């Protein structure tokens, strides 16, 4: 225990910096993932068979292969075409991965909005895009918050795999600290502590957001 506390005190500045990089990496990848998710959710529910096919292929490939492989394939694949920093390569790989799951979340919540909502909107003369933007999506987003929060937490933890590209986030730092000090258990436990705190902060923010938007009231019909 004393080794743990001592190591913690010696390394806190470095771990804090690494934690911040983890947060940055996660945040950037999730913003991109939301855009990707939204686009592919629309592909998936469109009437166009070609777009539906593309969306299904993308989702199947991502869900059907390990994330670590996807990171490597993207990293070495893209590196042959354009030069990306480790940060952007990692963020993109994570975004492409989370995007598939987020697409399914959006598809599910959009389709969970009662059919009558779209019909009412269209019966008032709204075009499909206006009805989507003004009526369906605001309701779908609210319903998406709990599963999205879940996906965000998974994304935060998955960002540890980007350490394998040499990006100095939390996991990589714990690895190098373990190698340097030979305090393997302590080093990894400290990283675990940082991850746990990050996830707790994340959870808190999402819960606040849910209450603010009073998710439970959406779609209630008396």
């Amino acid at each position: 225990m004393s080794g743990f506390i001592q190591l913690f005190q010696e390394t806190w500045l470095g771990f804090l910096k690494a934690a911040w990089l983890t947060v940055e990496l996660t945040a950037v990848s999730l913003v991109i993932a939301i855009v990707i998710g939204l686009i592919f959710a629309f592909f998936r529910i469109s009437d166009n068979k070609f777009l539906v096919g593309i969306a299904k292929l993308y989702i199947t490939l991502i869900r059907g292969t390990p994330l670590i492989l996807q990171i490597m394939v993207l990293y070495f694949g893209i590196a042959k075409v354009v030069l990306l920093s480790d940060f952007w390569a990692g963020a993109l790989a994570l975004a492409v991965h989370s995007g598939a799951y987020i697409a399914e979340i959006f598809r599910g919540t959009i389709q969970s909005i009662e059919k009558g909502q779209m019909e009412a909107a269209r019966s008032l003369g709204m075009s499909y895009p206006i009805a989507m933007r003004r009526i369906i999506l605001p309701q779908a987003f609210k319903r998406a918050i709990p599963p999205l929060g879940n996906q965000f937490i998974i994304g935060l933890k998955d960002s540890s795999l980007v350490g394998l590209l040499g990006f100095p986030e939390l996991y990589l730092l714990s690895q190098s600290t373990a190698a340097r000090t030979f305090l393997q258990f302590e080093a990894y436990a400290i990283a675990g502590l940082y991850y746990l705190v990050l996830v707790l902060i994340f959870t808190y923010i999402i819960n606040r957001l849910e209450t603010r938007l009073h998710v439970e009231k959406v779609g209630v019909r008396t």
Partner: protein
Amino acid sequence: MSSTMVSINDLHKSFGRLHVLKGCELHVEKNEVVVLIGASGSGKSTLLRCVNFLEIAEQGTIMIDGLKIQSGKDDLNKIREHVGMVFQHFNLFPHRTVLENITEAPIYVKKESKEKAINYARELLEKVGLLEKELCYPHQLSGGQQQRVAIARALAMKPKIMLFDEPTSALDPELVGEVLTVMKQLAKDGMTMMIVTHEMGFAKEVADRVIMMHDGTIIEQGPPLELFERPQHERTQRFLNQILK
């Protein structure tokens, strides 16, 4: 200008292998109130939904206010602006206040100024007796109140005709009256209306004409007293007996 508001000719509609409308023929005059009755599955709701193209018929024509509508060519959004619809389950937008429900389409479809839309919305809310509820959310209202807001929402687009698809079927019995009162006033004001309902008392009082549908066709029609007192068709007699018992 012709005096016909809606003209339906030889309309056919199928859902998969289910042939729901089998050659419907119906002409609704301006200011006329037409009530559609018939057993469930007879096609009355489908016929109504074809008039604002929520369902697209495979065959036949629909003319609205003298214009023949071609679903492939014409801008259906433009046409729906002039055809108001009230649904059985109200379908109010739960994330918008009462006032926003009503002003949404005038602002985002007709591009009216916010001020103008709000003023007219308040006028309509007064008409349906809910002016004090403008800041409420739909879930804070009773079913009857929600349906009255839904009527105001449809009226906000200044439609030429209003379609009602079983507007009181989802309501508790004690809330039916307030919705029917609003509809009666609307009829008195000269609105052209097509109403699917099981409220025979209301039909008797308000309808100019009652249409009896059975198995995807109109089998009988006439003024309500005539049709209710002396139904010609055996199927109409049986239906009325069942529903009036």
